[in-house]
């Protein structure tokens, strides 16, 4: 069939006013339904006619999904809060500036006005083969076009790949994993709360999904516990262009530092693997150590153990090592 791009085909649009109503539609259509948040990922797929859902459920009309609330130190961000709303929220910015930094570096100002935090977390990979409709593993085929001897894989994974070498491109996801956030997911069977770290899955487990979300599920909110509130944060995104560019790699860390000693730390990177990677070995190695160049250096070296660079992304190993190093060293150094 001839390929047409940039022309969205028709679909049935549902604009429910409540989560319950949305879940009803999702149940009715099952795998043929598509949950639409800000649309920055979805419209691309639709316009390119690569994904053609029968029913699109737009969550934009569900007011309750947009609110950002605080209770008992926990901040709960509605999945439909726009990235701009997250950045501007005083509770988020005062307690969890890590998330603010990450969010501000996502996409472009225009996209942040429209894009939602839930959409940013749940977005699909930007592997250019997959996005362009090549029928790869992730699309149900039997090949990874980005991992062939001649493939163009400058922007692909150095860690965590399994057949598919696409990366998770979210900037907010590693920040949320670092903050030990929880994802609240609802379906018609009820609600479940999933630690951010477990929310993302790699191709080893399911090559066609980036998160645990199944047909019928809606990510309704993100809860950030007070655990890391106000601690020392570090976020850095590496990209080719100053704006509107997905990360070649990014890093988020949250550290509890007392008298210059790292009491506890969480280090997470994205853009290097199919899911936000937490570097627990590096964390263990620096826990109890003084913040220093040597400590940071060691964390960086440990983080890149086991990398498997592809033909065009060897630079990401050096990049990841240095980003992890900087995330331990902190911004001041």
């Amino acid at each position, binding site marked *: *069939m*001839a*390929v047409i791009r940039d022309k969205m085909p028709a679909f049935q649009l549902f604009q429910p006013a409540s989560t319950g109503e949305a879940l009803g539609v999702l149940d009715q259509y099952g795998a043929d339904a598509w949950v639409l948040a800000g649309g920055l990922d979805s419209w691309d797929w639709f316009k390119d006619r690569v994904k053609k859902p029968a029913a699109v459920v737009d969550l934009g009309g569900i007011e309750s999904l947009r609110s950002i609330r605080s209770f008992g130190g926990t901040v709960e961000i509605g999945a439909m809060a726009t990235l701009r709303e997250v950045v501007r929220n005083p509770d988020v910015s005062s307690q969890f500036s890590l998330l603010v930094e990450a969010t501000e570096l996502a996409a472009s100002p225009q996209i942040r006005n429209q894009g939602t935090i839930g959409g940013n977390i749940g977005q699909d990979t930007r592997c250019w083969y997959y996005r362009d409709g*090549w*029928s790869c593993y992730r699309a*149900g*085929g*039997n*090949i*990874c*076009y980005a*991992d*062939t*001897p*001649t493939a163009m894989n400058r922007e692909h994974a150095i860690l965590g*790949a*399994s*057949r598919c070498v696409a990366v998770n491109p979210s900037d907010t996801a590693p920040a949320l994993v670092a903050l030990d956030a929880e994802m609240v997911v609802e379906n018609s069977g009820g609600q479940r709360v999933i630690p951010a770290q477990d929310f993302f899955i*790699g191709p*080893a*487990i*399911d090559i066609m999904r980036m998160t645990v979300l199944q047909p019928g599920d809606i990510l309704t909110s993100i809860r950030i516990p007070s655990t890391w509130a106000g601690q020392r944060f570090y976020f850095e995104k590496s990209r080719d262009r100053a704006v509107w560019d997905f990360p070649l790699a990014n890093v988020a860390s949250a550290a509890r530092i007392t008298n210059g000693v790292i009491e506890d730390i969480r280090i997470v990177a994205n853009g290097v693997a199919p899911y936000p990677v937490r570097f627990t070995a590096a964390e263990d190695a620096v826990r109890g150590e003084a913040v220093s160049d040597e400590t940071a250096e060691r964390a960086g070296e440990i983080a890149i153990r086991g990398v*498997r660079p592809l033909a065009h992304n060897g630079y990401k190993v050096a990049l990841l090592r240095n980003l992890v190093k900087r995330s331990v060293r902190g911004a001041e150094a």
Partner: protein
Amino acid sequence: MEIFQWDTNPWGQETLIRISWDLLYLFFWAGIAFIVFHVLYAAVWLPRLAREAANGGGGEAAAGIPEKIERHTLAARLFHWVMAAAMLALLVTGFFPIIGIQFAWVTIHWIAGVVLTISIIYHVIHASFYLDFWSIWLLPADLAEAAQRVKRQLGGSGGGVQRHAKYPLDHKLYHTAVMLAGLAVIGTGLVMMFRIENPLVTSNAYLLAEETWGLMYALHGLGAVLFVMLTLTHIYFAVRPDKFWLTKSMIFGSVDREQYLAHHDPSRWVVSEKPAASQEPAKN
């Protein structure tokens, strides 16, 4: 129902990528159907045949036949169980994700595949040089015998039907099926190692032409779904009380003299005087 799954390549050309997983369900239910059929068949027919058999054969002297007769050497049994474990691991890792039970399966799958391959290579060498190589193969005589048995089952004369040699016809048929399916999955599986990350080969998704890859995946799938059926029926027979003496022999290595005489023709499976516990491989 689809037999094959087709997809379009980056140039928009239609290309075979694998069998349709409809076949998984087909072969699964075919295995179940066989079992159900066999349960009924065994309940209705076997008692009658058993009566006839009791009347007919088994009159030879037990002289010279030891109490325990080695049917499977330790080496052969080890092979069987290693292979069985690998095969089960392969089936579980291969098919559970397809039916919706998701986990990181690829590494276990290819390691199990390598184990299976090594075990099969061992088996081929072992069977070729240390076992009665031909005892498991379908031979022209088996066909004549099969015809007689069918005749008898259909109510014809039972006369002249021999008891089995070491391996009865159904075992031989099963072995042949397993061999063919096994060759398919192993041969293709080894090539498919080039499409996954592993320490044994450097992956190269373009090692073969696209159509050849499609064929590889389809053959692998076909062999695998055939194994679903074969494994189901195999396990079924293994746990059937009337076959349990055989299952035991695969665990402990030997059969009792009574079973030997009841089911086997001593002229066709000549048992030596040697004790069953002997470490030396049995020749005939």
